[in-house]
């Protein structure tokens, strides 16, 4: 469209640049802090330019950690986070795609009831029912274990809805063609539906990976054994002690390490990420 308004173009970029600065600055500061020595935080203001201790701080946190701040070596916690995030993503996808398939492609008594039971999980975020959920997990002997970290979080109405939504857009004719071509339900699921859902699955995986990675309260509750700590929860305790003991360099190194994997996923898989996000929330 023909538009003769140069000022507007300038304003647009200005707004965007300010936006980017606001978004990036806190992390820049964290990064800077993570490259200094501990003593640098005892002299008033935080440093604004990177210091020389980057490698030292990060390798210290990765390999040794600070046991007296509740932080075992970060490499262990990162690994736990990875296990947790991946398992949650895979688990959620697996159980939701099956249930969405049942709900969309079959008619059976209690179909509506099943739908509502699943829908209810949308309404009950773990934060509002922590104590009884914790108790159930404890009674099942799942504290301090990967299953305890993972299974209670894999029921997902969102993913079920996404798949349901997607399945509804799969043309009826495709299933009819497959039936005429002699395929039964599981064959149709495997040969046609699953391959068609590939990009949805990938997009969902990205989103759910992030969901799993950023979990805080749940790992905080169900792990008392440092072998199962995840990085996001571990970091909090580190930060709490940094109040009285200024080792912000270590805390911020941990912060950067805890942020890096999911942020990289977002940046590298931007297309899938956006698709996953926008679609799961619809």
């Amino acid at each position, binding site marked *: 469209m023909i538009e003769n308004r140069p000022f507007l173009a300038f304003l647009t970029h200005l707004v965007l640049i300010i936006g980017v600065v606001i978004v990036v600055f806190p992390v820049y500061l964290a990064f800077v802090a993570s490259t200094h020595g501990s003593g640098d935080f005892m002299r008033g203001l935080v440093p604004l330019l990177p210091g020389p201790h980057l490698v030292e701080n990060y390798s210290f946190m990765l390999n040794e950690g600070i046991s007296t701040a509740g932080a075992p070596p970060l490499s262990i916690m990162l690994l736990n986070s990875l296990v947790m995030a991946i398992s949650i993503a895979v688990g959620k996808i697996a159980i939701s795609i099956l249930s969405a398939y049942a709900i969309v492609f079959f008619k059976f008594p209690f179909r509506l009831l099943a739908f509502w039971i699943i829908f209810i999980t949308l309404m009950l975020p773990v934060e509002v029912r922590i104590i009884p959920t914790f108790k159930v997990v404890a009674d099942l002997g799942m504290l301090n274990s990967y299953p305890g970290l993972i299974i209670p979080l894999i029921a997902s109405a969102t993913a079920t809805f996404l798949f349901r939504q997607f399945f509804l857009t799969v*043309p009826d*004719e*495709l299933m*009819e*063609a497959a039936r005429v*071509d002699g395929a039964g339900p599981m064959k149709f699921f495997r040969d046609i539906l699953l391959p068609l859902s590939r990009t949805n699955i990938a997009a969902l995986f990205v989103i759910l990976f992030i969901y799993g990675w950023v979990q805080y309260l749940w790992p905080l509750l169900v792990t008392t054994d440092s072998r199962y700590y995840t990085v996001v929860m571990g970091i909090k305790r580190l930060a709490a002690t940094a109040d009285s003991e200024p080792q912000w360099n270590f805390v911020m190194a941990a912060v950067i390490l805890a942020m890096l994997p999911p942020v990289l996923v977002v940046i590298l898989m931007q297309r899938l990420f956006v698709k996953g996000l926008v679609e799961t929330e619809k």
Partner: protein
Amino acid sequence: MASIDISGVKKVYGGAVTAIHSLDLAIPDGELVVLVGPSGCGKSTLLRMIAGLEAITEGTISIDGTVVNTKEPAERDIAMVFQNYALYPHMTVRGNLEYGLKNRGTPRDEIDRRVTEAARILEIEPFLDRRPRQLSGGQRQRVAMGRAIVRQPKAFLFDEPLSNLDAKLRGQMRIEIKRLQRNLATTSVYVTHDQLEAMTLADRLVVMNGGRIEQVGAPLALYERPETLFVAGFIGSPPMNLIDIDDLRDKGALALPDGSDLVGIRPDTIQLSPPEGQHLVLEATVELYEPIGGESHLHMRLDGSGQLIVAAVPARTAVTEGSRATLYVSMTDLHPFNKETGQRTD
């Protein structure tokens, strides 16, 4: 190859909507039957009942003499071509063609033979390794056809297979389908709501309306002698003009059969100079002159009733908009109907 017998078939959806009212139709082996009718008249429903995709509420459908009412689609040995083609988007063209054969456990070399053959016939060899989305609309249509013919089924069922193509391509594919069906001589049921397609493809044309059959017959027979008002209005383009007998000046002289109260006049039978033999005379004012190349359409308003009628006249006919015209129609070109019953009266 097989005959299809539909007898007393009825379809009620969800206990409420009756889509098909007790319908009978026998399709002999090798015939291509076209179902036409307005949207919602039950064409697809009927086809889908034949395919086994929809349960039959009442009556029976037999293929090749066997009642198939409770058989799964896979067991009926029919092939179907869908409006949106329903190609498996994640499989190559070859994969699409093979899928049905593989599911039936056809031996590998037989599969290859048939796929090669079908690809040759349909000229889709160059695309065998492409995915459907890499094909144009016409090419996809061919693949859909290919998927049906590799199966060598007892019957082909087509549900508006050409309606997603543009006019030009539709014309071409129509001719190809016709040829193919002639060569394979497979019993076929073809659903469309495109008149031209219906007229040109059908061995026999079935005009449906509101879940019932209005008329069955050869295409030209239906055009020339529509048995009901519905068929008269539905077939032909521009549509037949329908004029109330009371609006005709010389209705006395017409000598139409008893019970006639409407006459139908096809636009191309309206003449501007008096023909030989007995004929009808109408007076009208020309409202719009539309040249469309080989012929022109005259949109006119009849004196008296003020009804709009259309005549198709040769291209360079000398008429100006706003002028008055006298129109002539041979008595033999009149189609008399009874409004009430909707039936032809002669």
